[in-house]
């Protein structure tokens, strides 16, 4: 009996005009957008490769050790899975300077892509967005007349004359409708994958397949939520027209209005805490402390006066790097010196210069680390908390849960960008260790290239590996669990209501 019901429902759904139209529309949109997104990904990949190449070559421009500060850049490669859910991958800065004078954060990134900035006026449509909008609509359209429609037509009573329990009828409806919803989903994914393999520029790897499966699974759970919402409405209402209206109201609220409303509201009404100013003051103070130490050292050393050139005669260039931004708490001071030739007479003075930098640079690193801690805390408080607050409010809509979960699967969410920043911070530490190993701070090559330029061949290279699926899944589990819970609750409610109803 169950199988007969299942087959009937399946045919009833598949043979409808709306299924055909929705299927065609979804597939067309998926193909069109995949082509656009692949082209966009390829452009970003080329841009990344060029930038990474240039940045590698740029290091060799540094003649002395201290010149590395400001010539060492690392880049974030584009994520191929951003085609599924762009997340923050496209938008946030993807190039960053590694300096020993500053602990890098997300707010120090800049963009290496040379795209037209006005293009951001057209928001990007990724595959998850298409599923999110169109397939959820289709799920509601399938569901709204599943019970109300049969009741109106009188066929429900006919079914009930058979020895079949009501939950089984619901289950048959559910399974067959889900099969019809999964069909366009899987076909879209297959089409997208075919386009991937045709383009040839996208290397997914074994990891990538797992992630795509995760996205597929999450999509199914998401569609099931919407089907069950529709089924519940259908069980509650007497007429299909009312069921349809209610479904549309709920759909437009959950999918279109609510998420935007939350981010808009949080953006407009969130008061930026005064913490930024206080922290900026603190950072300035720490750097002032550093300046004091520096002056003290110059005062107390064996050379007269506070001259940081130590009366060395020769030719070359020198400069100071200074940068501050009170909105992102960026603040650093760097010192740069490169003597290309030094007079014989000044040779004995060099010992003072060496002592100076040997004292100063570790202190500078220490200062940068200290301010980095203050800064990280303040930025977390101000910007990250705001974004998290908005995300948590948005989670009241299953649409946002789906979005955030697929973002985690694709590795394009905030956590993945954060991982990149952490690996850049680790790389900075590696570079500092390299300086220590080479005894660079106390060496002549820190400030003078007259006896040969620095050989950068053994400078450790930056390498960035995306987090494993297992780490990314951790960020998705909460949302997926919530979606599953909503599924169970909705199904239970529908069964309870349907069982008690008169037909």
């Amino acid at each position: 009996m169950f199988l007969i019901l299942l087959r009937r429902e399946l045919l009833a759904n598949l043979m409808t005009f709306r299924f055909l139209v929705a299927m065609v529309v979804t597939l067309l949109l998926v193909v069109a957008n995949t082509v656009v997104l692949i082209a966009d990904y390829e452009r970003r990949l080329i841009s990344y490769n060029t930038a990474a190449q240039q940045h590698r070559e740029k290091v060799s421009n540094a003649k002395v050790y201290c010149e590395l500060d400001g010539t060492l850049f690392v880049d974030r490669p584009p994520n191929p899975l951003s085609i599924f859910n762009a997340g923050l991958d496209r938008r946030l800065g993807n190039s960053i300077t590694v300096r020993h004078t500053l602990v890098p954060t997300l707010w120090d990134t800049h963009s290496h892509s040379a795209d037209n900035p006005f293009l951001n006026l057209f928001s990007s449509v990724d595959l998850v967005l298409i599923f999110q909008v169109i397939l959820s609509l289709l799920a509601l359209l399938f569901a709204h007349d599943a019970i109300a429609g049969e009741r109106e037509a009188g066929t429900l009573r006919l079914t009930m004359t058979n020895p079949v329990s009501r939950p089984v009828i619901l289950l048959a409806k559910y399974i067959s409708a889900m099969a019809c919803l999964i069909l366009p989903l899987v076909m879209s994914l297959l089409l997208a994958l075919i386009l991937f393999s045709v383009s040839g520029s996208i290397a997914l790897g074994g990891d990538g397949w797992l992630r795509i499966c995760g996205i597929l699974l999450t999509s199914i759970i998401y569609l099931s939520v919407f089907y069950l919402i529709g089924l519940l409405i259908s069980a509650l209402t007497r007429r299909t027209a009312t069921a349809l209206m209610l479904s549309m109201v709920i759909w437009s609220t959950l999918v279109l209005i609510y998420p935007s409303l939350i981010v808009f509201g949080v953006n407009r009404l969130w008061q930026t805490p005064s913490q930024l100013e206080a922290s900026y003051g603190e950072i300035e103070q720490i750097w002032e402390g550093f300046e004091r130490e520096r002056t003290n050292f110059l005062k107390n050393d064996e050379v007269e006066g506070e001259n940081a050139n130590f009366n060395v005669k020769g030719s070359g260039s020198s400069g100071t790097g200074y940068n501050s931004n009170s909105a992102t708490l960026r603040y650093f001071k760097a010192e740069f010196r490169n003597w290309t030739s030094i007079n014989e007479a000044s040779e004995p003075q060099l010992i003072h210069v060496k002592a100076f930098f040997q004292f100063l640079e570790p202190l500078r690193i220490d200062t940068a680390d200290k301010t980095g801690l203050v800064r990280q805390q303040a930025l977390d408080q101000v910007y990250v908390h705001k974004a998290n607050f908005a995300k948590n409010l948005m989670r009241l809509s299953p649409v946002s849960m789906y979005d955030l979960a697929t973002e985690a699967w694709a590795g394009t969410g905030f956590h993945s960008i954060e991982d990149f920043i952490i690996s850049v911070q680790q790389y900075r530490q590696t570079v500092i260790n390299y300086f220590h190993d080479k005894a660079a701070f106390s060496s002549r090559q820190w400030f003078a290239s007259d006896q040969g330029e620095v050989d950068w061949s053994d400078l450790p290279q930056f390498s960035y590996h995306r987090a494993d699926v297992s780490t990314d899944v951790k960020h998705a589990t909460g949302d997926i669990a919530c979606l599953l819970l909503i599924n169970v609750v909705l199904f239970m409610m529908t069964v309870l209501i349907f069982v008690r109803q008169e037909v």
Partner: protein
Amino acid sequence: MQPQPTDGAGYEKERPYQDTPDRTARKIKRMIWHIIKRELYDHLNSLRFAFTTVLLIILMLINAVGYLDEYKTQSTAYQKKVLASLDKMRSQTDNLYNLLITGPGNLYKKPFSLSFCASSGEGFIPESAEGGRAGWSIGFNGFSAKGLWRMKYPQSNPNLWDIMPDYRNVDWADIISIVLSLIAILFTFDTISSEQERGTLRLTFSNSISRGTVLVSKFLAALITISIPFLIAALINLFLLYSSGSTPLGPSEWGRLGVIVLIAFVYVSIFLALGLLISSYMSHSSTSLTILLLIWVVWIALLPSTLGALTSGLQPTMTGDELNARRENLRQNLDEQYENRWSKTASRDIPATEGTLLWSKYLTEDAKRNEELNEEHLNTQIAQIQLARSITRISPASSVRYAIESLAGTGFSRHVQFLAHVRRYAGEFSTFLIETDRADPESPHALGPKEGTSQKPVSFESIPKFEDRISFSGAYTAAATDILLLLLFFVVLFAGAFLSFLRVDV
């Protein structure tokens, strides 16, 4: 002159024929009013009307609260920046040469009090242009020269560090383009098919009434039903903004708001016509709604973005690498062309010596050609966006957004106008420098090197100041194309609905 009928009897005979159209018109009017009343009564009592009213009022309230202090904050920030820029200019007035090097400084786009109507794109559009230093100087044998000022256009991407999730601003343009169109569909999807299902359409036709009249009155009834909650919500929104005092609305702003509301009506009419068209084609209202919703999702929600991204590939822009290469090329060309400048220096002799003239020519040329390159770069970007915009107009959601943006003084077309103002001003500023220099008898009149330029202080008041204007004619002209397109969509769809309604079997 046409010969008048001389036959009195013939004239009398024709009288009843002259009267008939008049009487019919009155009859039709009565009939239309009758159907409208019936439809209105149906609509106003429906669940969807309640839903529409609540939704529109909530959205408009949120918009008002979100933008309550927006204009005040924006204009305070704008004035602060303009003052800072003018102060910087004032500090350079002790010498005309200084002005020639530093230029007019940052030029800012003026905020407009109607930004609550359309501000989604504002985050992606720079708010200023810069007429500033070249940033290079050369010196030899005691002679030194600096590059002259030129226009630069910042390539800022203000949301580079924005970690908030993607979202749409809740502004009027979004409320109209997304929510009102959906509402229009929800009000019309069953107008004809449900009457067909119930058989009431046959009853209506049994009266002596043409099908066109029925269609027009159904259309008008739906339009009135939607406009009531929309106008109420809009008035609440405007009342809040106006009474808070931070958003001044003068007569011209009210005029613009009126046009925006009219555009909203035209836009709603498009979807009412679409709803009537599909509704009269489909025999079941549920199929009709399915088709309408899918059309709506594709046409309104997804197509504008997809098309924008698709067409941007058609017209490539100058990439950053290309720009750098062109700039380097330009530098080398100038170097070759003015190679003999290294053997000459400028002096204060009057009339200007050969060396002074040569340096003047070189520096002017350098500034001019670099500025041209900057503008070319900007123009390729603008052309790419213009092309994408004209293609996205296939979706009326884009047209309506662009029209509202033009009227609200925000968005891309406003930015293009701003850039035009900036260019005109840059010309005025250069002319001012040349004329002031000409008025100084102690100058050799060879602008460029310090020696060839007037060294006299300049009165700050006499320097032309940049003032960004929001021109009326510009706004309406920019919006006209979009409004015409919307009207065209409406006419086509309504004609379609009319034709298909004539063929409906009852």
